[in-house]
């Protein structure tokens, strides 16, 4: 067993086929160590969610090589390879089946993978994410956004994955709820020795949770910065600094305001 949990080499991802093929991610390489949290930051359309989709198995139109837990991953994955990593989605209102009770939602992955002791596992998962046990009889519409995101995390954890892929897990939530979820993610990572990949547009959120951050623009990395670099403000690339300013809020204008958007 090596120290590397995820190794990505020359990953390129595209959508569509034939003449309308659109390459969204170009030649991206990185490694994530076991227990590390790696961030992907950028503006909309930069390809950060696409990289995550390729790692999750959602997007299969990729070239290059992906190794997860010392296993080379193909375009089609075995059921045990799928259980290695699980995804948490941005929108807690769209990521849970509206007509399934929470218990049903949590049982589903256990049935797919033929796990035993299902009731115990469901109870443990609810306890792990800090939800009361009787929530399993509720429907999603009875839950708040933060509670739904906890259910989504519980569903991801119930298969005991080694990796959690987090796609903007807090950007649809209020600030106070975001703090709860970020704390929960931190606790779970420390307790279960999980490896995270966190996609976000907010550098403050990423710097809070991640050890290293890749800053993406136009489908490629412009820089991979460490948490220390971000906090000490010693990043190399000007675009990284633009994003850092953005997470601090509005910067009173340096008149005249010249730039016009594309």
């Amino acid at each position, binding site marked *: 067993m090596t120290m590397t949990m995820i190794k990505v080499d020359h990953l390129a991802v595209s959508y569509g086929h034939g003449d309308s093929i659109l390459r969204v991610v170009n030649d991206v390489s990185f490694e994530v160590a076991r227990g590390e949290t790696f961030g992907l930051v950028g503006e909309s359309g930069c390809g950060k969610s696409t990289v995550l989709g390729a790692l*999750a*198995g*959602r997007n299969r139109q990729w070239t290059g090589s992906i190794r997860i837990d010392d296993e080379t991953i193909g375009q089609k994955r075995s*059921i045990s390879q*799928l*259980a290695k990593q*699980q*995804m948490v*989605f941005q*929108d807690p209102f*769209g*990521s*849970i*089946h*509206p*007509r*399934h*009770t929470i*218990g049903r939602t949590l049982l*589903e*992955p256990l049935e*797919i*993978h033929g796990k035993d002791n299902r009731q115990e596992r469901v109870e443990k998962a609810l306890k792990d994410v800090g939800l009361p046990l*009787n929530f399993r*009889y*509720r*429907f999603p*519409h*009875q839950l708040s956004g933060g509670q739904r995101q906890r259910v*989504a995390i519980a*569903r991801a954890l119930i*298969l005991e994955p080694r990796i959690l892929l987090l796609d903007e897990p807090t950007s649809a939530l209020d600030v106070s709820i975001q703090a709860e979820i970020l704390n929960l993610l931190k606790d779970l990572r420390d307790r279960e020795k999980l490896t995270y990949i966190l996609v976000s547009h907010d550098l403050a959120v990423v710097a809070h949770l991640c050890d290293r951050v890749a800053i993406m623009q136009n489908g490629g990395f412009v820089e991979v910065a460490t948490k220390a670099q971000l906090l000490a403000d010693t990043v190399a690339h000007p675009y990284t600094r633009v994003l850092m300013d953005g997470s601090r809020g509005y910067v009173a204008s340096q008149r005249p305001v010249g730039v016009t958007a594309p």
Partner: protein
Amino acid sequence: MTQDPGTAMTKSGYFTDLHNWLINEDFTSTRQARLHKAYVAWLSLLANPLAFAGFAVVVTLVIIAALAPVLTVYDPYGQDLTMALKAPSASHWFGTDEFGRDVYTRIVYGARTTLYISILVTVIVAPIGFVIGASAGYLGGWVDVVLMRITDIFLSFPSLVLALAFSAALGPGIENAVIAIALTIWPPIARLARAETLTFRNADFVVAAELQGARMGRILLRHIVPLCAPSIIVRLTLNMSSIILTAAGLGFLGLGAQPPMAEWGAMAAAGRKYLLDAWWLTTIPGLAILVVSLAFNLFGDGLRDILDPRNA
């Protein structure tokens, strides 16, 4: 609901407790969660008088069909030519037909035929329409193209003409009528299932199931069916009236139920010859068809309001 606590131990107190238990959203079991949903649906049905009226007629129809021998004194097939074409009276509420059979009895037994045809058609059509539509929507690509073009071919014929052609080819008889009607009813269901599937195809919760290794069958049955079911059920309920009308139409034209079977359409057709002398022979079956298909339509409209997933 606004009971004085002092009188809570009366009989209505029990119902109040039951109501509160059912309306309470702090579920303590899956059963309570399910009963709650059913109860809320029931309350919203009560709140919609037209839909409730439709529901009541449909339930009455089922009861009449089930209890037909108890509700009648005559034999639906027993001929008595001495009693032919008698006007409605105390002994023959809806009069008698040209063979002296009691029209009331035949209407009651005709309810069985009507229910038999419409339920059988629905049972055949629902899974076929869903599987074709949902597979096309879920898989996309050439599967979608092939399945939907087949659907389009069926859709491009007027349904009565298509049903006529099929029952003429298959030969008269009630089973063949069922098959012929089913062949004309499934394409709209398939279209609906495909459209519904497409809206949920890329929902995060479906992707989540895929990333956990769920296969197509499981996704369709476990994840898509609960979401499509309400609109398909509504559509099928609204279709009931057109099934009944088509069945009656086939019976009227002599291609559906064959004599001496009691079937409302065939009864109306047979009475046509005596329209001027014996108005009840055509009017009564016609009214029965009208009331039942109207009831199914009202009930279907109400169901749409109650079951619409977008209201959840």
